[in-house]
């Protein structure tokens, strides 16, 4: 079992969700995050004082999947999130050792979906 963590542009969330649905991946958890990366920030000024904003708004996805679903999950995220511009984001895959469904105590691969 793998945990896919993806940082994407906020306005790509809907298309990523649609791509995931197409691949029959329905379970995903989302938080909002600030990201600092290659993408240049922008300048605000507040009352005449310049502010360099280099923490940009990103959406962070967590998708736990079984190995067999890993590829299609990665594909879906990439397809949905890619615009080709800097700031499109990153995907990290981490190992999951155990997974439990709280409702009924299911564990492992059964629990994940």
């Amino acid at each position, binding site marked *: 079992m793998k945990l896919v963590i993806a940082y994407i542009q906020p*306005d790509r969330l809907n298309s990523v969700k649609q791509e995931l649905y197409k691949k029959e991946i329905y379970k995903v958890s989302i938080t909002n995050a600030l990201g600092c990366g290659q993408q240049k920030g922008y300048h605000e*000024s507040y009352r005449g004082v310049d502010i360099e904003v280099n923490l940009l708004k990103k959406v962070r996805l967590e998708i736990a999947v079984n190995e067999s679903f890993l590829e299609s999950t990665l594909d879906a995220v990439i397809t949905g999130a890619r615009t080709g511009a800097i700031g499109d984001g990153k995907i990290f895959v981490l190992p999951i050792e155990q997974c439990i469904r709280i409702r009924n105590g299911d564990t492992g691969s059964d629990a994940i979906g």
Partner: protein
Amino acid sequence: MTYAKVCFITIGLLVPGIAAAQDLEALVQLHQMSLDMIWLILAAALVFFMQVGFALVEIGLTRAKNSGNIIMKNLMDFSAGAIIYWAFGWAVMYGTSVSGLFGSSQFFIRGADHFLLTDWMFQVVFAATAATIVSGAMAERTKFSAYLVYTVFITGIIYPVSGHWVWGGGWLDSLGFHDFAGSTVVHSAGGWAAMAGALVLGPRIGKYVRQGKDISVKAIQGHNLPLASAGVFFLWFGWYGFNAGSTLSGTDLSISHIAVITTLGAAAGAIGAMVTAWKRFGKPEVSMSLNGALAGLVGITANCDTVSPLGAVIIGLAAGLLVVLSIEFFDKVLHIDDPVGAISVHGVCGVWGTIATGLFHTEAGLFYGGGAALLGVQAIGAASIFLWVTGASLVLFLVIRKTMGLRVSEREELMGLDITEHGTESYSGFQIFTNM
């Protein structure tokens, strides 16, 4: 503010015996002027207060990333508008009439006496109301500089010209057109300019999504209903100045009638919209009910001097019903994106209020045995101002679009106008999901 002087004068006037009959008469005449003046100045302050109502309704019903831009638009359409109306707008509206079409004197209200200053003060806040209505319909995607240009033209020409027809002694006034406080002159005018603007501008990204052959209508939720609701209460409050002040005299005893009618019309509007929304969408929707109160107010504005309480309740209920259906119609059928419902509230219900005058006027209304004459004139008035304002605004917005550009870029729209147009954040530090 030196008390000594004031007291001296006052006491002089008060000591019995000193004041001869002549003086007494002069004093009574001073009171007449003063009553008119303080009534109108206070009413004008109330109408000014509607500005913050408009601003908050628009802020509340749009997304957080554009709030600062909305503030600037609302601050500037009043500020720039006031300067323009001083220099130009008043002259076009109330200057010596050129064939009943527009006025052409009193630029910069030069040589204004106390009467004219009072009137100007009351009129400038009306002009600003018409101007600011448009802001809501064009929210979240209009270039700020373009909005400034628009402001100049609506307060300088578009509004004053049709205002002249009705209130400046123009041709509609001669016909007997009745628009007591401006359902048509102010609200419809604002509403139709809003429609022209929204049309030329196009919808916000993501509002109407083409799916195959169909267009799917999406909701773009407002981010702050408490502020929107405060805005509606502020508008309602200010409307007592708007309607009751339109007597233009503090000793016109119909003031209390007008206040009562305004209250009942607004209340019925809120109820009408709530019930309609409840029936249509299964829930008593908040933002629609808020729009309903405004719809009732707009609907009662033309006729609050001449309808009965029962008439007011019916007009309000109908306005509430109408505003919900109209918002759905513009959204789902015409696909004109109006984030706050300005076209329906002000344009459509403004017409309704104007027509309703022909129906419910307790003397000349159709339902009261007054025949269809007034109704006809009301229809002519509503139609001609619709044509003038829509036409002139379309030209204005098309020219702006062609020359300086009317709309921000896609990237700017997505990032939000606060950052891209004003370099600011409105809710710094708050965690807000901006993809919504």
